């Protein structure tokens, strides 16, 4: 009789938690609530040299990036590689990339919560944190790329003696309000679901930690009334945040699609960007989870089942991305508009060709790889695969933003682009900034939502069907 719990091809055990089998079900694990609490609190209470080394490296990159940004402000945007006609380059590319990354969090915590999918349980907080910090970092770019960043506040409608209002027909205004909305929403969502775990941390720590958690837990006791209200609020959040996350990346795509620039002016941009965001975001999430699982020794909580399920979701997202890419490309290619043709030939066989084939390879090969359970459940293989997806999706954004601007209706106005150290440093700064925020967050706050895992464990039992012992979920909601 085969063991229904074991997933074939999964790697069993790890050096630090020998009693946890990688392929055992988390929600059926023979653990008391107290042991789960202690397992989550351990990385919060002890930080090793590796953590501080990482923080130091990231802080160094950030400091260098901040110097570059101040250099940019002081001397002007000429220090970047932008020119006419390529007015938007790496900053906007990376902006779109980070907005894309932010979509995975909502996908996991809101959509999967609504669908009552249990494998989301240990992942939701890590995913929501990724969303919140990706948005913080993305929100820097509309400031970084401004010619006069010291006047950026003019985009906010505040009372002024000229009685001026900003232009709400501009997609950049929609960007401002949509990204602010999404950032506020995901931060509040993250915090609300965090309160019961902050109470748990408050009850198990002392000293300055206890004071911090006490403040953040707002006096949570876990009464029936409190739980009822919290769950109702989370349900409302889950439903409300889905249209927000769909609209944010659509609005960002309309920054491009509302112009009459060839290859930008495409109605498919909105869903294409959203699905691209889900694809790259889920891949980034998988990469982060693999790294955090090793770095914070959370092998107890992140098991084969989670990566298997996440890998399947990425597979579906990848296939959808391919469909939307092809639907857009076919129509452009078929229409034979002269400028579009020039752009496509640049992409297929011109200067942009190496990047184009990198994009297609790095986006399509993972789809094939993720069809194999061995890839999905082996952390090293999955990490390589999803990092490849992120490389491909970043290149895709680059080709859309920079590639398309190089050609337009009047050949005299065609141009090229070369990045400079300023742009690369600032981009590196945002990557390091995200990593630093995430690293510090995951040590201060319980990374895994223990109350949700405990709630899930209530639902799961083993049931006998014929000769099999089958994990069974009860519907107690």
């Amino acid at each position, binding site marked *: 009789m085969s063991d229904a719990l074991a997933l074939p091809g999964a790697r069993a055990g790890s050096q630090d938690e020998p009693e946890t089998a990688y392929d055992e079900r988390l929600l059926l694990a023979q653990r008391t609530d107290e042991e789960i609490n202690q397992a989550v609190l351990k990385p919060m209470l002890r930080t090793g040299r590796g953590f501080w080394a990482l923080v130091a490296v990231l802080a160094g990159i950030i400091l260098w990036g901040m110097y570059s940004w101040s250099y940019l402000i002081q001397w002007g945007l000429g220090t970047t590689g932008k020119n006419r006609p390529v007015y938007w380059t790496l900053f906007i590319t990376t902006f779109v990339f980070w907005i894309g990354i932010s979509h995975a969090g909502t996908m996991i915590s809101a959509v999967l919560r609504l669908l009552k999918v249990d494998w989301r349980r240990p992942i939701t907080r890590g995913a929501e944190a990724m969303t919140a910090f990706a948005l913080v970092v993305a929100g820097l770019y509309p400031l970084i790329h401004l010619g006069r960043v010291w006047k950026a506040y003019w985009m906010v409608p505040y009372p002024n003696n000229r009685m001026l209002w900003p232009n709400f027909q501009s997609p950049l205004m929609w960007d401002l309000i949509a990204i602010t909305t999404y950032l506020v929403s995901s931060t509040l969502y993250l915090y609300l679901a965090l309160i019961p775990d902050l109470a*748990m941390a408050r009850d198990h720590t002392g000293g300055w930690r206890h004071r911090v958690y006490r*403040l953040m837990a*707002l006096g949570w006791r876990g009464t029936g009334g*409190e739980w009822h209200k919290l*769950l109702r609020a989370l349900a409302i959040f889950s439903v409300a945040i889905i249209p927000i996350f769909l609209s944010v990346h659509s609005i960002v795509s309309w920054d491009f699609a509302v112009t009459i620039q060839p290859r930008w002016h495409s109605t498919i941009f909105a869903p294409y960007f959203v699905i691209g965001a889900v694809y790259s975001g889920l891949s980034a999430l998988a990469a982060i989870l693999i790294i955090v699982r090793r770095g914070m020794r959370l092998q107890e909580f992140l098991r084969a089942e989670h990566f298997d399920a996440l890998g399947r979701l990425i597979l579906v997202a990848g296939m959808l991305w391919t469909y939307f890419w092809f639907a857009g490309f076919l129509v452009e290619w078929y229409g034979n508009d002269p400028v579009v043709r020039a752009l496509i030939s640049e992409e297929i066989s011109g200067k942009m060709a190496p990047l184009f084939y990198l994009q297609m390879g790095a986006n399509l090969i993972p789809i094939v790889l993720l069809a194999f359970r061995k890839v999905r459940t082996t952390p090293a293989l999955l990490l390589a695969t999803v990092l490849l997806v992120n490389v491909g999706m970043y290149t895709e954004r680059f080709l859309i933003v920079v590639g398309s601007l190089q050609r337009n209706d009047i050949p005299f106005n065609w141009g090229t682009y070369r990045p400079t150290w300023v742009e690369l440093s600032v981009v590196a700064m945002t990557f390091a900034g995200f990593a630093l925020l995430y690293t510090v967050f995951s040590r201060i706050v319980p990374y895994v939502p223990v*109350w949700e895992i405990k709630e899930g464990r209530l639902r799961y039992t083993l049931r006998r069907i014929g000769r099999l012992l089958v994990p069974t979920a009860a519907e107690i909601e």
Partner: protein
Amino acid sequence: MDGRNATTDTIRLMALLADATQTAQAIDDLHALGIEDRKIVVLSGVPYPERALGRHTEWLALPWIVLAGAIGGFVFGLFLAVITPHLYRLDIGGHPAAAFPPAAIVVFVFTMMATIVSTFLGVLWEMDFPRFGRAPYHDLVTDGNLAVLLEIPADLQAKARAIFEAHHGHHIGEPEWISL
């Protein structure tokens, strides 16, 4: 502070129980003893549906707060998108000052923003958070126990204790007022 009130003679009693079934049975017995549902508070580290423990479900004002917030956001978005272009008229080539597609986007986003913020503030208001200060609580609640907290007349104390003991309750006694 021991919760003993001389004039009405009510005391507080808390017990920790191990699982939901025992808690539900204990609560049934307490109801049979004549203790009102609103004098019973169950603390847990995991959410249990009220009906699992034989409790009444509280009516929430939250959905109405959210609706009010959403309407407020809708109106504000409408003002920004449709009214402000006429307050200081600046013509845009090829488009009217206020048109449906951009207005729809702005109104939608502000409605959603207001929905989210009013959900958050509404749930905090309804839970009466933040509530720091002393409250009856036990640290073992987050370690998987359910705490049943009673506010009962002193003469029922012995019977209540008996019920708790019958359902394998432990740490029975007056609750500690912990600073939360």
